[in-house]
């Protein structure tokens, strides 16, 4: 009941004219960013973050969350109309969305994607509302030892569940953590890792510089090779008849959509998993539980609905640990967390006590964002069809200029702009060599918290390392972290074992 009252107060904030306008603006921008092949929610948030200084901090976060949401809806548009996923999160949508478009049912597929996104987004925001308070209450009991153990666990999920090369994942986590220590030592205040005695390094390396470099410049360089030729846009027209046919078709898919929402929400909470695997899993489950699995991949509307509910639910799911525990569930939420810290809003349980207006304003804005996104998405489909014809070189030039100026604006130092260019080139090369970038960004954002909580614990416990294991909550997290860490080893040994048994049979 308390939650409902708080949520009602939140709506008073989020329905204010300024915030409502911001939600509509953010969702529309997000839809366009998501629809552009190569740019997804994380790129959009990284590039737009420096521009959000124009509104007050709490509205800026609402704007970024709306962009995140809009981009999740928008990803499906290019998956269906171009056959190229607008973002990696919309890969599963191409499986059935593209065949539907080729059969002349592009409009129906777009409606299905928008409605499914709405269902996934709304069901997961309800789950979010229910889980937020209990989780924040639990997190109130956390001390530095628990914080350290939780961050450690977040990183080990990349090793155990990330699916990328284990050694390369470890390299990226360590690189992010080491880069986060550049600047002044937080306990003694002495400078460290000041490369070349450059004054710019004294204030450390901002998460924004790394994110703009890797997700802005790096992404453009990476997409240069894939989008040289303009892809064929499938025409799509939306009529009222199609809209009602789409609604009727979606009405039969409640089981698939609710399953996708729950799955997406819980998978999305894990830092290493997130929207892409959630969408693929939901697609797989929908196909295996379907009465006609052979129609999947040939233009089954259920194959569009399942991944779209899951990826939107996952984006909400990844916000939950970010807001309640201060541990982001995805690279995009890592940027949101970095932005909040920059504006003096420290995510975590205390935020629910100290800034309830902001927290519930944000949560309620997720409800309004969903309504705005589904309406704008369907209404503006002709505009998206037109926008997708925009030459890639024009988009690239605009993004690069925004990266340069956006990198300069927060600190007003050319040093940061040079770093952005350097990180962009390095990020592009690392990505080509299959190094995962998400753990790098997460490590840079969480690095200061991890080091601070580690050293605080040891100082408080007079150097007793066992303190991390002796406390029940932190001990549990450490045990889980150890489990995630040895998981790839177990998988490797079992694979090796089964291979050695095979010849004997």
């Amino acid at each position, binding site marked *: 009941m308390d939650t409902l009252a708080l949520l009602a107060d939140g709506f008073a904030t989020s329905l204010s004219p300024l915030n409502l306008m911001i939600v509509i603006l953010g969702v529309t921008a997000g839809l366009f960013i998501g629809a552009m092949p190569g740019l997804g929610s994380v790129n959009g948030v990284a590039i737009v973050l420096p521009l959000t200084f124009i509104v007050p901090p709490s509205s800026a976060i609402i704007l970024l969350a709306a962009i995140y949401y809009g981009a999740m809806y928008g990803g499906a548009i290019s998956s269906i109309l171009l056959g190229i996923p607008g973002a990696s999160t919309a890969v599963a949508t191409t499986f059935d969305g593209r065949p539907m478009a080729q059969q002349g049912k592009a409009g129906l597929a777009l409606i299905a994607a928008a409605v499914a996104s709405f269902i996934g987004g709304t069901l997961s925001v309800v789950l979010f509302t229910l889980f937020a308070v209990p989780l924040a209450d639990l997190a109130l009991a956390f001390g530095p030892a628990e914080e350290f153990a939780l961050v450690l666990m977040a990183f080990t999920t990349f090793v155990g569940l990330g699916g990328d090369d284990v050694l390369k994942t470890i390299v990226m986590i360590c690189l992010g*953590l080491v880069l986060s220590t550049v600047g002044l030592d937080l306990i003694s205040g002495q400078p460290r890792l000041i490369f070349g005695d450059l004054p710019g390094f004294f204030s450390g390396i901002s998460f924004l510089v790394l994110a703009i470099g890797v997700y802005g410049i790096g992404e453009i360089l990476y997409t240069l090779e894939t989008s*040289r030729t303009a892809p064929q846009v499938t025409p799509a027209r939306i009529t009222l008849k199609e809209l009602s046919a789409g609604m009727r078709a979606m009405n039969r898919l409640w089981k698939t959509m609710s399953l996708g929402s729950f799955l997406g929400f819980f998978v999305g909470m894990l830092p290493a998993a997130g929207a892409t695997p959630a969408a693929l899993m939901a697609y797989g489950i929908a196909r295996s539980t379907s009465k006609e699995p052979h129609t999947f991949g040939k233009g089954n509307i259920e194959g569009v609905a399942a991944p779209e509910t899951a990826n939107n639910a996952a984006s909400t799911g990844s916000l939950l640990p970010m807001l309640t525990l201060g541990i982001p569930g995805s690279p995009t939420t890592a940027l949101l967390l970095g932005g909040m810290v920059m504006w003096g809003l420290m995510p975590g349980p205390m935020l629910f006590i100290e800034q309830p207006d902001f927290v519930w304003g944000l949560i309620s804005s997720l409800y309004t964002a969903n309504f705005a996104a589904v309406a704008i998405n369907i209404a503006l489909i002709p505009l998206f069809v037109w926008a997708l014809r925009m030459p890639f070189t024009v988009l690239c*030039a605009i993004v690069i200029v925004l990266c*340069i100026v956006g990198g300069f604006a927060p600190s007003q130092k050319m040093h940061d702009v040079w770093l952005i260019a350097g990180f962009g080139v390095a990020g592009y090369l690392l990505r080509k060599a299959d190094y995962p970038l998400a753990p790098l960004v997460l490590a840079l954002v969480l690095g200061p918290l991890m080091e601070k909580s580690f050293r605080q614990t040891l100082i408080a416990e007079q150097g007793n390392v066992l303190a991390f294991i002796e406390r029940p909550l932190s001990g549990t997290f450490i045990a889980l972290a150890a489990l995630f860490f040895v998981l790839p080893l177990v998988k490797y040994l079992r694979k090796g074992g089964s291979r050695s048994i095979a010849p004997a049979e």
Partner: protein
Amino acid sequence: MLVADRVIAIAIMALSAYFMWHATELPIGWNGMTGGPGGGAFPFWLSLVMLLAAGGIFVRSLGEDHGGQSFFDGVMLKSVISVVIALFATIALIPVAGAYIAIPLFMFWYVRIFGRHSWFLTGCLALGTPVFLFFFFEVTLKILLPKGFTEPLFFPLYAMFF
């Protein structure tokens, strides 16, 4: 692909060693006084882990066969390199000639020469971008972009908007 993998692994190992060398400026061991690791410990030992993991990647690549897949595609590499050079040139030009010369020049190069678009589109973007940047950053956010030697030209504009 394999060669690039090895080169990147070696580069990361060198970078880790450089980080470790820098980290030793602060105590990297246990600090008996405060009961906890010193200021250099966190970067030092993490760099060591990074060095070992990159070493593992390098050693592993020695045992693999050459896939025959090249890391770079010739045509694509040329466009990536030209964009990177244009980017670095633009950033280098900003403190000297100012953002309002460097950025339109970059736009012109990218849209007209690299993208081969029409003069009309090029003109709109090359002239529209600085106007947008001026009103968004300088007028609304009060963030002054670097202007280099063009600074005096902006005095009348400052007088008008501030």
